[in-house]
C-alpha cells in the first residue's frame, strides 16, 4: 500500500505540476457546461436535473480518460525511465495501481470542480432538486471513470508512442460506449436476442444509465469494478511481458 501511495504521489506531481491535469479539468467542465446550458431545458422549464450533463459523460470519458492516461507508461518507455522504475523494489501490481490511482485523483478533482453546476441548479431552480439522480450520476461518473482510466493504463502500456496509445484507447472506448450500446442491442433484439443481451450487458451506457437514474444496483457496480480490475490486470500482464 505504501508503494502504491509513493507512485501515486509522484504521478500526481507530474499531473498537477504540469498543465496536463488542469487542461483536462478545464476542458471537460467547459465542454460539458456548454452542452448543458445550450441544450438542456434548464432555462426554459427550469428543470432541476443534470440529465444532459450525465448523458454526455460516458462520451467525454471515452475520449478524455485515454488522454489523461496515455503518458503513464508510454512516456516512461519512450524516455527509458521504466529501466529505473522496474529496478526499484516495488511490485509491478503496485506500480500499475499507483499510476491508475493518480489518474483517478485527476478525475476526482474534475468531479469536485464540477460541483458548481448542481449547486447553481439548486440555487436557481424553482422546483425542488431531486438529488438522487445527481448523486447517482456522480457515482456513475466515478465508477465508469475508474474503468476507462484502467483501460487507458493498459493501452498506454502497449506502445511507447503516446498518440498510438490515445487512438487505441479511444477506439476501445468507442466499442464499449457506441458499439455495445442500448440502441444497437435493441436493433439486434429481433433477430439475435441472445447477442442483443450480451451487447447490452457489456456496454457502458446500459450500466451508466441505470446508476444515473439513481438506482445503485449491485450488478452495475460489479460491472464497473470488474471492468477496472480486468484492464488493470491486463496492464500488469503487459508490463511484466516487457521482461520477457
Amino acid at each position: 500500500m505504501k508503494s502504491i501511495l509513493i507512485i501515486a504521489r509522484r504521478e500526481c506531481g507530474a499531473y498537477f505540476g504540469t498543465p496536463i491535469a488542469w487542461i483536462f479539468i478545464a476542458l471537460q467542465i467547459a465542454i460539458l457546461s456548454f452542452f448543458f446550458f445550450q441544450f438542456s431545458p434548464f432555462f426554459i422549464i427550469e428543470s432541476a436535473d443534470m440529465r444532459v450533463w450525465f448523458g454526455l459523460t460516458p462520451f467525454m470519458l471515452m475520449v478524455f480518460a485515454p488522454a489523461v492516461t496515455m503518458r503513464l507508461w508510454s512516456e516512461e518507455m519512450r524516455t527509458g525511465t521504466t529501466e529505473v522504475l522496474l529496478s526499484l523494489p516495488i511490485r509491478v501490481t503496485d506500480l500499475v495501481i499507483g499510476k491508475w490511482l493518480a489518474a483517478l485523483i485527476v478525475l476526482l478533482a474534475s468531479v469536485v470542480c464540477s460541483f458548481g453546476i448542481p449547486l447553481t441548479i439548486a440555487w436557481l431552480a424553482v422546483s425542488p432538486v431531486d438529488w438522487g439522480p445527481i448523486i447517482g450520476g456522480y457515482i456513475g461518473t466515478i465508477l465508469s471513470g475508474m474503468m476507462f482510466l484502467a483501460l487507458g493504463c493498459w493501452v498506454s502500456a502497449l506502445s511507447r508512442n503516446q498518440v498510438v496509445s490515445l487512438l487505441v484507447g479511444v477506439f476501445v472506448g468507442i466499442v464499449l460506449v457506441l458499439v455495445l450500446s442500448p440502441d444497437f442491442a435493441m436493433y439486434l433484439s429481433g433477430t439475435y436476442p441472445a447477442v442483443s443481451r450480451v451487447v447490452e450487458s457489456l456496454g457502458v451506457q446500459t450500466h451508466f444509465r441505470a446508476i444515473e437514474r439513481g438506482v445503485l444496483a449491485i450488478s452495475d457496480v460489479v460491472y464497473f469494478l470488474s471492468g477496472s480490475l480486468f484492464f488493470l490486470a491486463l496492464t500488469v500482464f503487459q508490463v511484466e511481458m516487457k521482461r520477457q
Partner: protein
Amino acid sequence: MAMEPGQKAVVVANKTADDEPAIEATRLCRTFGAIVAVDDVSFEVGRGEILGFLGPNGAGKSTTLRMITGLLAADEGTAKICGIDVSHDPLGARQCFGYLPEAIPLYDEMQVDQYLRFIGNSRGLVGADLEQKLQDVCSRLGLEQMLRRYCGTLSKGFRQRVGLAQALIHDPQVLILDEPTNGLDPRQIIEVRQLIRELAQERAIIFSTHILQEIAAICTRIIVIHSGKLIADGTAEELAGEGSTGWEVVVSGDGISSEMCTGIGMTGGVPGAPGEVVHRWLSDTPPDLATLTLQIEGCGSSLIGVGQARETLEQVYLRLTAAEVVQ
C-alpha cells in the same frame, strides 16, 4: 584468461572464505527471435572488485546487465545479487543493488531533490534516514547546488551525477553501471572514475563500457564479451600475458647495432627517443643470455632487462574479438 564455454570465472580478490560473491551469474542465455544475444555467460564478482564489462557495441553487455538486474528474464541460467536469486526474490535482490542505465533516464518535470526523495522512498528510506542519505550522496556527487533544479534542465554531466545519486542513495552493496562516462567531458570522466574507485572499497561494481582506456584506468578485473559469448576474464595483466608477442630485450647505450642484434636472433629493434638511448629488441625465441650479455657489455652498452613482450589492452581486445569473428 580466455574462457571455455560454460566455464565460470571465479576471482577472489578481496574476498574472504565465508564471503559469498556479491554478483553471481551462472550460464545466462538470452535470445531475441533468431538472434542469440547472450550465450552461456557465467561469472562472479566479489566485494571490492570493479569488474569492467568490455565488448563492442551490440556484443550483449547491456542484455547481460539487464538480466542481472532482473529487468529482462533469462531464457536459461540464474543471476544472484548478494546470494538472492533475481527471478525468485526480485524485490529482495533489487534492494541490494543500484543501477544506472545507459541512457540516464530521469523525470524531467521533477526537481533533483524531489526525484531523489522519490527514489529513496521507493527504496524504503523515510524521515531523518532519508534526509541523511540524501545529504551524503549529494555532497559526495557535488549536487548540493542543484537540488532545486529541474532534471530536464540539467547538463549531461549533472544528469549523470543525478543518475549515480539515485543508484547510490540506499547505499547498496552492488552497483551496476551501464556506460557511466558516456558523453562526459574529460574532467567529468576523471571525476566519475575517482568516484567509482572510492565506492568500490566496500562494494562490488560492474562497469560496462566499450572504451578501453576506461577499463584500464579503473577496473580491477576485465570480462570481454563478444557476440553474446564471454571470451575472456582476468586482470589486464593476465589478459596481456596470454598474448605474448615474443621476447623483449631492453638495452641502454649507443654501442649496440642492428647487425649485432640480428646476429643473436633479435629483430625489430625500436630505438629510444633522442637523449634516452634506450633500445628495445624483439625475438620469437628466448635470447641466449650469456651471449647477449657478453656482446652488449663488449660494446659498452648495458642490459636493462629481458622479458616476455606484453600486448597492450588494445591489442588484447583486437586479438580476442578478431578470433571470435573468424570463428
